[in-house]
């Protein structure tokens, strides 16, 4: 999983010990794969007023590369949307089915199944000029000091990445493995959940769950990780 020679960027995978790397690499030991399997079943399950399954409109092959180029601009709106948001939107708008709650097992499993189709591909944000202001917004958030601890993301993840914080190596924070199985959560979770953990960690008030700020931040982080290998479902401590 190492990046090419002069590229100093490291995935969180490289900051883990050998035992956890092995857990991620083995599809029959990686707990995230349980959710990929569930996602595969949900993909084929008809739902809603149209009684259509995801697989009735999309071929699995269509999904290759999708997670590696998300977030994207929402088709109807003027806002960018992350992968979980896109799945939830499809569920109500196209399947005409009951909405799936954010961070629910169903949404995460579908996202895991879709994201797994991009595993091994380079992260490739789309060249959509409409994303530019959101990427700038994301970068501004990344560099801004926040919370009672008055820390910015950049202070830990740019300036101090590689050093130890409470016995753990500070990662560079590239979203290479999402949705991922975080051992701390004991379940699969989204990047948004991880970002909220960070905000709480620096004693800031987490933004409202549907805030565009999270998507903007993800757009910036994915751009910063451009070209790195997509690993979903990752395993992280």
């Amino acid at each position, binding site marked *: 999983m190492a990046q090419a020679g002069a590229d100093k960027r490291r995935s969180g995978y490289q900051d*883990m*010990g*050998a*035992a*956890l790397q*092995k*857990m991620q690499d083995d599809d029959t030991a990686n*707990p995230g794969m349980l959710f990929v399997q569930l996602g595969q079943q949900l993909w084929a399950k008809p739902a809603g007023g149209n009684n259509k399954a995801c697989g009735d409109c999309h071929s699995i092959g269509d999904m290759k590369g999708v997670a590696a180029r998300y977030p994207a601009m929402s088709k109807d709106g003027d806002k960018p949307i992350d992968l979980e948001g896109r799945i939830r939107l499809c569920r109500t708008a196209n399947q005409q089915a009951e909405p799936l709650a954010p961070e629910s097992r169903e949404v995460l499993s579908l996202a895991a199944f879709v994201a797994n189709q991009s595993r091994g591909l380079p992260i490739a944000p789309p060249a959509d000029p409409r994303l530019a202001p959101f990427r700038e917004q994301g970068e501004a958030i990344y560099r801004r000091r926040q919370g009672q601890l008055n820390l910015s993301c950049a202070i830990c993840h740019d300036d101090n990445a590689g050093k130890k*914080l*409470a*016995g*753990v190596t500070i990662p560079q924070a590239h979203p290479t493995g999402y949705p991922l199985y975080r*051992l*701390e*959560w*004991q379940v699969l979770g989204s990047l948004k*959940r991880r970002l*909220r*953990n*960070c905000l*709480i*960690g*620096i004693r800031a008030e987490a933004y409202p769950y549907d805030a565009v700020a999270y998507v903007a931040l993800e757009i910036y982080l994915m751009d910063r990780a451009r070209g790195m290998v997509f690993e979903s479902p990752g395993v992280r*401590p």
Partner: protein
Amino acid sequence: MPGTTKERTTRRTFIAGVALVSVLPFAPARATPEAMAAAIKEVVGDNAIREGRVTLDLPPLIENGNAVPLAVSVESPMTEADHIKAIHVFNEKNPQPHVFDARLSPRNGKAVVATRIKLGDSQKIVAIAETSKGEFFSASADVIVTLAACLEDLT
């Protein structure tokens, strides 16, 4: 599980008590080296415990105590006459001292078991192998468990 019924009654009584006290992150009572020694004695009785034959694999530094990869392997011909019939693993600082008990036979070919365990603190882990001849062998490991720097709010 040796002593399971007794343990559960005790735990229920204890849990009722904890609810009345201000909240601690872990139930503190059972976690002691003495509890581990008692649990080991329940399995081994008065028999001698010998060193050797058992290898306990744990990462030396554990990034998160919720899922620690652990493997126990025991040297044995695994024949009808001489095989490992059980592997017992214990801990000394979790709320209760057992980790797992595995039953094996010559049908396994190799006495190797791997799983993932929860460790609430840096502590000693002990693995005890029981042979078909009634002998006990053990190995132990001291591990360091680091806690996550940015914890999630449960609310």
